[in-house]
């Protein structure tokens, strides 16, 4: 997740205090896994240093959050470019799942039992996400969908690998 560009994007909607930014970020992009406020301020500090945001005057009142951050033209251009670029596809993806299966086969362990267990864990997670989708807001559903499709992709891989274990074992033990 690109935190600086996401915060910049939120600032393009409207200028904002650090705390409000954090709250919007947590709500839309990271429910259940909030940003640390310290990270928000250090990121905003770097964005200011690079001329992508400017810091408004300190507002009167109490509390630490008395500065508004405003996006600059440079910042807005960067957001615009980022939004239209495709994200990196995972060309060199080698997940822990993959590593565990290959190592298990090399060591003569029961890779099939591992895959079954992983499968069960994946479906259990999908069951939790299904509940989120049933009860949540549309934005939660969207995020849950994304996780579910990824879990499904893993599951397809698990099933195909399960069917290929015999041949795979011969190959890695050579």
């Amino acid at each position, binding site marked *: 997740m690109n935190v600086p560009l996401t915060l910049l994007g939120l600032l393009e909607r409207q200028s904002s205090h650090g705390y409000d930014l954090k709250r919007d970020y947590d709500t839309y992009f990271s429910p259940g896994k909030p940003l640390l406020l310290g990270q928000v301020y250090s990121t905003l500090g770097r964005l200011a240093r690079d001329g992508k945001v400017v810091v408004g005057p300190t507002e009167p009142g109490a509390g630490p959050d008395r500065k508004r951050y405003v996006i600059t033209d440079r910042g807005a251009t960067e957001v615009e470019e980022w939004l239209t670029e495709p994200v990196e596809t995972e060309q060199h993806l080698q997940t822990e799942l993959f590593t565990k299966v290959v190592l298990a086969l090399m060591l003569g362990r029961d890779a099939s039992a591992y895959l079954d267990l992983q*499968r*069960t864990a*994946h*479906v259990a997670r999908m069951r939790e996400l*299904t509940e989120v989708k049933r009860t949540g807001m549309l934005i939660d559903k969207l995020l849950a969908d994304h996780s579910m499709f990824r879990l*499904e992709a893993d599951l397809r891989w698990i099933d195909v690998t399960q069917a290929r274990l015999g041949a795979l074992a011969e190959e890695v033990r050579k």
Partner: protein
Amino acid sequence: MTAGQAPLLEVRDAVLSFGQTPALRGADLSVAAGEILAVMGPSGSGKSTLLHCMAGILVPDSGEVRFDGRRVDRMREPERSELRRDRFGFVFQFGQLVPELTAEENVAMPLLLGGTRRGPALAEARGWFPRLGLDGLGGRRSGELSGGQAQRVALARAMVARPDVLFADEPTGSLDSLTGEQVMEQLVDAVRENGTTAVIVTHEARVAACADREVMVRDGKVTSLRLERTGP
């Protein structure tokens, strides 16, 4: 219903071959009353055959099938047929609606076959249309319904007689993701509301994720796994 902990449905060591082709090779499975069970597994592994044995459509060559304590595998066809009609509901991949009948008449069919008179049967059938988002479609024939609508009509038909068990074989297999999801939501709601036990055959994990528990069929045998919680 079943007393105590005894399962509502039980298959023990079921073996069944189609000629030379083995479909079940010692399948064991128990389903508790009120449970929603997903049966997963690769194509050709024996899922549909297992479901057909539980539902009394097929009889295994050996092994036992029990429903509510009764030996289904020992029943003669008329008795199994009565069991299917009175206690079970069915949804298949393709709705299998009778094309000559309207959607409403299709839904009313299990009631009519069970001896309910036409007026009350149709009235009961009609009640299912609004709750499944099928308002105004009661008069259509199956050729005039979309895939998702036809599957909902099939669901209503399966549930209209308030069966003890709903058997569904790839109920969303012919639908796109979103439509499939809506049909599954409605299936689960209908089943839970009525306290019906459900056995759902699917190769789709997102369908299985709507169930309380899933089992895998591989090479005609059933594997069920439970996660041991190990740490956070």
